[in-house]
């Protein structure tokens, strides 16, 4: 199935019965799929009048404790910014999908990874994070959607699937055999008091600065727990690597091809593929920095993840960028060239 369809079906399997969205290429298949499936399973599909309306509908359903999602692509996610911040301020669990396209502005409709900063550094105003998951196959589009809902509920926060146009459009076989953890109890949900308790309120407005500060500190304590427990990454041929390539999503597939070719040429090179972009997998880079002579960050952007790579490797080895932007994808040959160049001492 298509990457976008895999997200939609996995969300349904994860128990999501509420989808609100607004069409934008290259993620529209998610909405189209939900429009067909939701009415048949007693769920709610609603094409909102705008991205802002859609994200606020997500806030509404999240407040009631039900699993809920929206999806969009880059410019649409920018429009949702206010809602993302409100969800964070009210500690609401929800799943947001961003099938990225080239930017800035309206940009283009071809794949990109240039919303990395937006996704991992908050995505809107205020101190907050989202858990950001970066799939690199159609199977992972499904797997991480289920995982995204589980993490969102576990930590009362928003998860984001950060995919790109390629991941959304490509077709691969998928197994949808999931053992979904049921949603935890949500005593905070505004789902009716049944005259047995006080009213619950979900809210992101705290006029007392002391109270607002306290909420922020509490939230960041939770973020520490997530950083310690939920970081995910894949290592490929890193055991004896003298050069480290790093990439996420579609770029990691290109990088793997280049690594296989470089290995054939006798170059000891491996890959670190972050799966969670926030929390960023610091540990493998820290370790790699003691082992390799340099790191190459392969990105479909002007270089965004590279900043986290430099921080994680504590600038102990040179970190170079191998990139295309604006909807273009680096070729395996381009990545191979970067690897050969670094192997020949060409790293700056």
């Amino acid at each position, binding site marked *: 199935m298509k990457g976008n369809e895999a997200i939609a079906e996995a969300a349904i399997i994860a128990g999501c019965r509420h989808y609100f969205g607004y069409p934008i290429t290259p993620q529209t298949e998610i909405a189209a799929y939900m429009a067909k499936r939701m009415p048949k399973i007693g769920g709610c599909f609603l094409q909102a009048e705008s991205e802002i309306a859609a994200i606020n509908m997500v806030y509404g359903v999240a407040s009631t404790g039900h699993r809920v999602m929206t999806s969009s692509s880059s410019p649409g996610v920018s429009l949702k910014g206010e809602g993302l911040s409100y969800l964070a301020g009210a500690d609401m669990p929800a799943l947001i999908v961003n099938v990225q396209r080239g930017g800035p502005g309206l940009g283009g409709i071809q794949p990109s990874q240039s919303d990395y900063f937006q996704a991992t550094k908050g995505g809107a105003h205020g101190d907050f994070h989202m858990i950001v998951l970066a799939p690199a196959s159609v199977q992972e589009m499904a797997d991480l959607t289920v995982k995204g809902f589980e993490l969102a509920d576990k930590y009362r926060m928003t998860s984001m699937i950060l995919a790109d146009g390629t991941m959304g459009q490509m077709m691969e076989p998928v197994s949808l055999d999931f053992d979904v953890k049921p949603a935890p109890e949500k005593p905070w949900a505004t789902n009716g008091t049944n005259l047995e308790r006080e009213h619950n309120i979900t809210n992101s407005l705290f006029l007392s600065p002391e109270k607002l500060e306290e909420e922020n500190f509490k939230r960041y304590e939770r973020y520490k727990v997530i950083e310690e427990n939920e970081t995910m990454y894949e290592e490929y041929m890193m055991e004896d690597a003298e050069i480290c390539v790093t990439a996420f999503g579609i770029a990691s597939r290109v990088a793997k091809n280049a690594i296989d070719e470089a290995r054939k040429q006798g170059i000891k090179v491996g890959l670190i593929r972050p799966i969670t972009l926030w929390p960023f997998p610091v540990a493998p880079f820290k370790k790699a920095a003691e082992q390799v002579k340099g790191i190459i960050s392969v990105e479909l952007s002007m270089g965004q993840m590279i900043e986290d790579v430099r921080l994680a490797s504590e600038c102990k080895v040179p970190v170079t960028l191998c990139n295309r932007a604006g*909807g273009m994808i680096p070729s395996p040959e381009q990545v191979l060239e970067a690897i050969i160049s670094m192997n020949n001492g060409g790293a700056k």
Partner: protein
Amino acid sequence: MEYKRITLLCGHYGSGKTNIALNMAYEIKENYDNVAIADLDIVNPYFRTKDSAEELKEKGIRLIASEYAGTNVDIPALPQDMYSLTDDKTVKAVIDVGGDDRGALALGRISPKIMAENDYEAFLVINKYRPLTPDVASTLEVMAEIETAGSFKFTGIINNSNLGVQTTAEDVLNSLKYAEDVSKATGLPLICTSVNKTLFDELCGKIDNLFPLKLQKKIN
């Protein structure tokens, strides 16, 4: 295969219509001079006939596609020379219709003329391995939606059940009962089972009317 003047290919989106359309156009061209292929898919701007424009040109097959196809301009505009398909009766055409009822809606613009001329086949392309058409009931539902949106009736079924590059001969064999059941339920003949040509030798003799496909190159 014998071809009528117009061959329509419709189906659930992602069922493989574009690849079949291209291969049918190539086959018609072997015995007939004036051949056109029309890409009426104005819903999905990514994977489409226009990606094969060069190969079609080499073979002398006229491509009718939206001016915006492949330009990344996300505008659902129909190709202006679409009307030549029904006005020029000397052309043999394959029409690659967009997926589902949403895609077939565009066909409604010319389907009354195609029906009136009555020299056409309309094939429903089915793929058991697509998530929304895994069984007969769901396939019939999609079929009815397409017929309503496009204002036409299907005349045959093409079984294109596949799992992309990972398709095995066994996957194809396991889809035969489904295809026959769809054929029975609709009363429409099963025209052929289309497979990647790499599987053709393995399946030859095991399936009636096997149609080998040379797959369109996907864009990187």
